[in-house]
């Protein structure tokens, strides 16, 4: 969902900093002046790569195929991007850019806190954001359980919410697509976390 994907990219950037804080701190102490260590850019690359090649494609895929559900029926504009002027197609393009930007900001802010000795803020910050996002989605119940259009969900133009399908009944192939997207996301996240933890473990043992 649009409401989840952008904060998720921010959280991922901050999570990577949190998991790799030992390495980042150790490396920053060996660099001179305001120069950043190599690991800073390595982690920045990870944050942006994860945002751009894991979260963004997943979001685009669901937004392209099932635009109403992907933004829990907040706006009709996402469903009408073709031949409707200059603004509507800009929204999905801006969505992609916002995901990458969120990943970048999450990394930069996390690194600043880490270097300022405020690493205790990291975990409450990204967990708090996840909780807030979860509450926003839950507040929109039952939008995330129904598949259809903006007009159907809001009972507009003679259409009715009653005619919407359950997301678990694989309407228009949605359930299968969503499961595929989630598998892709989980595998990528586990791989990224494993890489960072392994890197830090190697640093700890001095090998």
């Amino acid at each position, binding site marked *: 969902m649009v409401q989840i994907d952008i904060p998720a990219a921010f959280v991922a950037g901050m999570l990577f900093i949190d998991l790799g804080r030992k390495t980042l701190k150790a490396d920053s102490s060996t660099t001179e002046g305001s*120069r*950043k*260590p*190599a*690991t*800073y*850019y*390595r982690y*920045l*690359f*990870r944050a*942006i*790569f994860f*945002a*751009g*090649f894991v979260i*963004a*494609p997943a979001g*685009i*895929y*669901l937004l*392209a*195929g*099932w*635009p109403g559900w992907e933004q829990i029926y907040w706006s009709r504009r996402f*469903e009408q*991007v*073709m*031949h*409707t*002027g*200059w603004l*509507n*197609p*800009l929204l*999905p*393009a*801006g969505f*992609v*850019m916002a995901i*990458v*930007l969120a990943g*970048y900001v999450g990394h930069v802010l996390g690194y600043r806190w880490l270097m300022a000795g405020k690493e205790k803020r990291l975990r409450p910050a990204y967990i708090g954001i996840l909780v807030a996002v979860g509450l926003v989605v839950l507040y929109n119940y039952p939008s995330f359980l129904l598949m259809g259009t903006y007009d159907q969900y809001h009972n507009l133009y003679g259409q009715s919410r009653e005619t919407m399908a359950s997301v678990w009944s694989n309407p*228009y*192939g*949605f359930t*299968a*697509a969503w499961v595929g997207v989630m598998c892709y996301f989980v595998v990528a996240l586990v791989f*990224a976390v494993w*890489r960072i933890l392994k890197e830090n473990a190697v640093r700890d043992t001095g090998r």
Partner: protein
Amino acid sequence: MLAIDVPVALLSGLALAEAGKNMLKSDDPNRHHFMRTAVLLFAAFFITPIPFYFFLGWPAWEVNFLWRWQDNLHDSPLYSATRVALYAGGGSGGGLARRPPTVGYVGRAQALRGRMAADARPEAIPANTARHTLRLLVESLADI
């Protein structure tokens, strides 16, 4: 247009590699990581959103009216995946520099083929360029 945007994305990756060749040739990992991050950011903010925007708003024009499928992507897992492919294509075009030695190599190889670079080194390019490039790209993913 797709026929223009994809080659432009590839050329942008090569141009960035050429511009940052001193950093790519350096032994300093700091410069390598900086370079590939810069290329990725460039791809995400300046290359991909442009064809993506036109493909969403005016899909038939974007593909030079070659096909019909792009006019009806909603509620279709397969067709909606084409947008992801477009996004990935735009991103990977500029993102050839995920691993700096790779893009340095690809840049030199391509430049040599096109006779665009006077300083390209023929001895650095093995016989099977495509396979070698693919291997380096796979290694670059493992290097994340």
